[in-house]
């Protein structure tokens, strides 16, 4: 019994300490460490400094889109465009999204050469992993597909940001995304590619009480707000990684 009590006391103390740290904040600020990267987006920097324009292509699956009325306007690709226009005034910013539902990473990797030759983006945001986890793709195959797609992007001399899965606490026990997130982290490290760690960022929002990601709501309000915040966080990461001068440094909501 004393043993149980000791364990109980230790665990409660540890839990209490963590609880005390996380006071809820109403805003969706993302701590620097979650979007910092050592890789520089050189092509993006060049486009903005030399041509004052930036063409971004988002390649992904359905978690890069929103359903409902005017879904595309509220989804993070459009929100990213808004945020970048706000923060890089005087530059022409265009974000194009290729996000049909149900695409695996292998499908996207196969489609990337065509997208690159049509869009000529300076930056590709590649959201991957969720459909692969759904379909139970082998992590090894997943890694090969990522490599193949990254090669296609590199061949077109574009910069790239990989984006991993959403944090989805309700489906966590059924949908194991962790092995796929690990592969993406590893590939990002190996190839010095920027990773937008959507999983960690949304997890942070959940811990901070920014969003109640457990909520069973059929309304679009929260989903739109989350996408807006993702768009803004992405804009911050792009501006940081491309070492660009920010018009309004403090607005990293």
């Amino acid at each position, binding site marked *: 019994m*004393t*043993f*149980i009590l000791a*364990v*109980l006391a230790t*665990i*409660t103390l*540890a*839990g*209490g300490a*963590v*609880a005390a740290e*996380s006071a809820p904040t109403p805003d969706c600020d993302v701590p620097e*460490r979650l979007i910092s990267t050592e890789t520089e987006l050189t092509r993006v920097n060049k486009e903005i400094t030399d041509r004052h324009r930036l063409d971004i292509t988002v390649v992904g*699956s*359905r*978690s890069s889109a*929103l*359903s*409902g009325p005017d879904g595309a306007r509220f989804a993070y690709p459009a929100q990213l465009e808004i945020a970048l226009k706000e923060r890089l005034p005087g530059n022409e910013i265009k974000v194009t999204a290729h996000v049909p*539902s149900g695409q695996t990473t292998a499908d996207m990797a196969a489609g990337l050469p065509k997208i690159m030759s049509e869009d000529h983006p300076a930056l590709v945001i590649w959201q991957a992993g*969720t*459909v692969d986890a*759904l*379909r*139970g*793709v*082998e*992590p090894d195959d997943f890694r090969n597909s990522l490599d193949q797609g990254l090669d296609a992007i590199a061949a077109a001399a574009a910069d790239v940001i990989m984006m991993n899965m*959403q944090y*989805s*606490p*309700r*489906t*966590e*026990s*059924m*949908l*194991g995304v962790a092995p796929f997130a*690990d*592969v993406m982290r*590893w590939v990002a*490290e*190996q190839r010095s590619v920027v990773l937008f760690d959507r999983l960690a960022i949304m*997890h942070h929002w*959940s811990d901070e009480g920014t969003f*109640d*990601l*457990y*909520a*069973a*709501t*059929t*309304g*679009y309000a*929260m*989903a739109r707000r*989350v996408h807006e915040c993702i768009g803004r966080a992405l804009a911050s990461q792009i501006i940081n990684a491309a070492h660009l001068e920010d018009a309004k440094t403090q607005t990293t909501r």
Partner: protein
Amino acid sequence: MVMVSPPQSVTSERDLRLDLFRGLALWLIFLDHIPDNVVSWLTIRNYGFSDATEIFIFISGFTAAFVYGRTMRERGFVLASARILRRAWQIYVAHIFLFTIFMAEIAYVAATFDNPLYAEEMKILDFLKQPDITIFQALLLKFKPVNMDVLPLYIVLLLLFPPMLFLLVRRPNVALGGSAVVYALAWRLDWNLPAYPNGVWFFNPFAWQLLFVFGAWCALGGARRLAGVLRSRAILAIAIAYLLFAFFITLTWHVEGLDRFVPGWLTEWMYPIDKTNLDVLRFAHFLALAAVTVYFVPRDWPVLKSPILWPAIVCGQHSLEVFCLGVFLAFAGQFVIAESSGGPLLQTGISVLGIIVMIAAANLVSWYKAIEGRSPVSRVKSPDADLAGGEA
């Protein structure tokens, strides 16, 4: 102690260290199976390459060989095989029971949870639309929900165990060598069992059998042969050095900026550390952990009989029941956390409560088995190998 050592036992007294560490492993597996559990920071997977699964599989191989090896020597191959297969059947039934509980939970989530943010993720529930296929695939052990991979691995290991044990009893080193060859071939030729809807088993039985067979080999005299090696200070130093190295590497996963101290060639060579195929680094980490443990925790360590360690020991002695209960409690705990939107305090409470329930259940089983064992009808004690041997 509730366990009464069988009077007809000719072998030495039960090694309580096995029960202790298997009990601890069961607790750790439970804690790790609750997603985002703050308490799971205590578990060993955060401090090295291997985790509780390795401990568990090794000890189960050890106890299986201990129990069924004796049966095989005393009563012959046929009876020992029959007992092993009966055990595999019991575990299969337990697995299907857990699967039913899992189905109930996700059917509930599918019916109540809806959020446009997760339109894509909710597709995981689509299999509920084709129960004809899903349930059939589950019965074939091809469809396995997250965290329900360990029991199917066991079932396969036990199904293949009779011939392996036959060899282990006669030619232990040949058996161990054969197991290592299968492990190497599985790596080389990508052997694994298919899963549904696609992919392969999360725990590759062709790779993980090595740990199980190694445990069995140790039980059948290997441990005694290794005793000299395990007492050597040089081995101890190597083991500790490797554990420290693994600790540092795991630290770089959790602490920002530390990874710049890991040289590129090492990263290149080391990653990914593959759990599915029991990476050599994981296996070595387990060996180092075991070597250090055996060095510092002798078999006759008096603390093993003290009440402080008894809760873990009693759990380790009834591992099938406690394991299944742990999987169920992890489901239930996660459900409660989701329904009340989480929080570290709740996670801590559920973790502690879960372990208390596991201890209580283990005691109940222990009490029941003791009562049954004393009744005159069941005087003939059948060795009940818990999970894969344990009541030895």
